């Protein structure tokens, strides 16, 4: 079963606009990570935010984490056609041995040129 719920399931925007997607999860976490997947194949790690962090930036990406609401958001600013992909949040539960990630269902983003 999947830990996270992502919202929206699909998002269509124009190039240059910002894209925001949200992730909710159920259990306490060690960290939350965002991944991108093109064409249903390999995932690319984007950013990791720890449970004691509230916001993190990486280039055009901004991630927030609210552990009281068990939710996170990913903002992509000034989107490009190359950002078209599916985006997944993944959580590492607190106390988990190793690095066993639990993924959400993903948000499919289409950036129109």
């Amino acid at each position, binding site marked *: *079963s*999947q830990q*996270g719920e992502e919202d929206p399931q699909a998002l269509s925007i124009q190039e240059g606009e910002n894209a925001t997607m949200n992730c909710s999860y159920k259990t306490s976490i*060690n*960290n939350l990570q965002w*991944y991108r997947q093109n064409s*249903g*194949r*390999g*995932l*690319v*790690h984007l950013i*990791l935010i*720890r449970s004691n962090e509230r916001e993190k930036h990486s280039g055009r990406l901004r991630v927030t984490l609210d552990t009281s609401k068990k939710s996170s958001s990913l903002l992509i600013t000034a989107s490009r056609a190359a950002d078209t992909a599916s985006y*997944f949040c*993944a959580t*590492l539960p607190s106390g*988990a*041995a*190793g*690095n*066993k*990630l*639990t*993924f*959400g*269902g*993903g948000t499919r983003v289409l950036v129109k040129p």
Partner: protein
Amino acid sequence: GAGVSQTPSNKVTEKGKYVELRCDPISGHTALYWYRQSLGQGPEFLIYFQGTGAADDSGLPNDRFFAVRPEGSVSTLKIQRTERGDSAVYLCASSLGQGGSETQYFGPGTRLLVL
């Protein structure tokens, strides 16, 4: 350097057959993970190895699924008596260690279709 590679990239088999899926992790990565992704869903954890041993196999759906990593590098996921419901993309990932902040690097996956 090379990333995680998986072979074959696509596999079509008939119900009831046996299949093996191979994963070559990044050189030097001690942790290796298998996930399964059904169409339109996120990946689901199957099993992870630290070195040669399976540290957590709680995600394997049943005893038809088995994975090995005999020398602590290449891993093989084995599925016996395949069923149509096994059709999915099987993803492998590796990380340098098993710490919670270690980035997992994913391979391109093997798309398995059971007819």
